[in-house]
């Protein structure tokens, strides 16, 4: 479903990704872990073309993201993304945040989009907040709206870029629960996270990145339980 080959990304002369090879299968949940500055988020952002790719190839659902002739908007319609800082549209009510892209991008009739939005908001536990503005919601509520907004496009893959890093510790759980439900329903997910508990419990595979390369990957039990590389165990000893 996602195939990445020899991906390099430079910001000026700073090479942030130094040759990443990675495949994500349908319904797989992959967690990217690693120290900050290791290139996890940049890697994630290359998958939907938010970052331009310096060299190598990225394909998602057999669309070549790395090919400038590809209509990137076609890819993005199939790839949902959730950001660290939620990035809800502040001037739109919760329900309108969710219906905006379906009605404007996919031309779904307004009422149909609304029904779907209400169902999704119910799913993330915010049925009572449909007419609130994002500014009046807590961080955890905003992030759940952001998840519903991404799901409204019926994506085949969901990308999560540190979805709980900006949240107070006591509300991290409500967002993780929603993500866990998604994973159980068979959504293909790539998650950049510092929530090691989530990675260990929910992921099918954990990828440890450092210095712009994949240091080690495998089933979470193995990566967390018996890391093969010193860099991995050093990192884990600091965060666990």
């Amino acid at each position: 479903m996602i195939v990445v080959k020899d991906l390099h990304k430079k910001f000026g002369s700073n090479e942030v990704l130094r040759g990443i090879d990675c495949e994500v299968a349908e319904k797989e949940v992959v967690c990217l872990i690693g120290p900050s500055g290791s290139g996890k988020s940049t890697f994630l952002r290359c998958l939907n073309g938010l970052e331009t790719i310096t060299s190598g190839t990225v394909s998602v659902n057999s669309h070549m993201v790395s090919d400038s002739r590809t209509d990137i908007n076609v890819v993005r319609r199939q790839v949902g993304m959730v950001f660290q800082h939620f990035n809800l549209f502040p001037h739109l009510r919760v329900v309108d945040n969710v219906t905006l892209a379906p009605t404007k991008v996919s031309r779904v009739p307004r009422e149909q989009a609304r029904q779907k939005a209400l169902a999704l908001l119910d799913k993330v536990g915010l049925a009572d907040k449909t007419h609130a503005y994002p500014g009046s919601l807590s961080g955890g509520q905003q992030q759940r709206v952001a998840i519903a907004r991404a799901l409204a496009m019926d994506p085949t893959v969901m990308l999560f870029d540190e979805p709980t890093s900006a949240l107070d510790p006591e509300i991290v759980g409500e967002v993780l629960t929603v993500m866990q439900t998604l994973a159980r329903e068979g959504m293909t997910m790539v998650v950049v996270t510092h929530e090691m508990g989530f990675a260990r419990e929910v992921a099918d595979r954990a990828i440890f990145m450092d210095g712009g390369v994949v240091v080690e990957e495998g089933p979470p039990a193995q990566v967390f339980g018996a890391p093969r590389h010193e860099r991995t165990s050093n990192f884990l000893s600091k965060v666990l």
Partner: protein
Amino acid sequence: MTFYFGDLLPFSSQLAAALWVSIYITLIAMAVGSGFGVLLYLGKAGTLPVVPQVSSAYIEVFRNTPLLVQLYLIYFGLPELGVNLNPTWAGIVALTLNNAAYTAEIYRAGFESVPGGLVEAGRALGMRGSQVFRHVVFMPATRNVFPALTNQFILLFLASSIASIIGLPELMNSILNINSETYRTFEILAVGGLLYFVVSGVFALGSKAMESYLFRWGVRSRA
């Protein structure tokens, strides 16, 4: 010294009509000029060839020359090129072109203050650049500069008095005419100044009301 405001009474309907002219040329110049200003900003910030340079040059020329010079050039200069505008149209055109240059810069500040994350969220949902602009960025940007736009609007209203010089029958022009008929200089200027003051105040109040309605989703200090 005695004041004779009573001498002005026969001119009240003339003043009212002139005030209305001032108001509507300001409204036209604000509406059209703001639209043009947003286009100028987009041209300046865009990546098309030549357009950014042309937009920048336009903005700088109109912001750095006196409105009076612009007005004279449009009213007395354009006929040399075969374009004859009556005073009203010359005034409207000058105020609109001038206002566009200022609102372009105000909007630049507004659009630059919108967090990049909002644009990315829009793009990540598959929206085209123009859709992101219209549906995602425009309202937060406008909210962020609404007080500056209000200020510009009031300045424009006051600056419209300059058009009296080419004979545009607006409030200042009427004040000067009444003065030369009655020689009640202090009285007519006091009344005229008060009219400008009151209408500016009404604009400011209207803007406040509009602000709290249009931007009820969030106060300015928040992203």
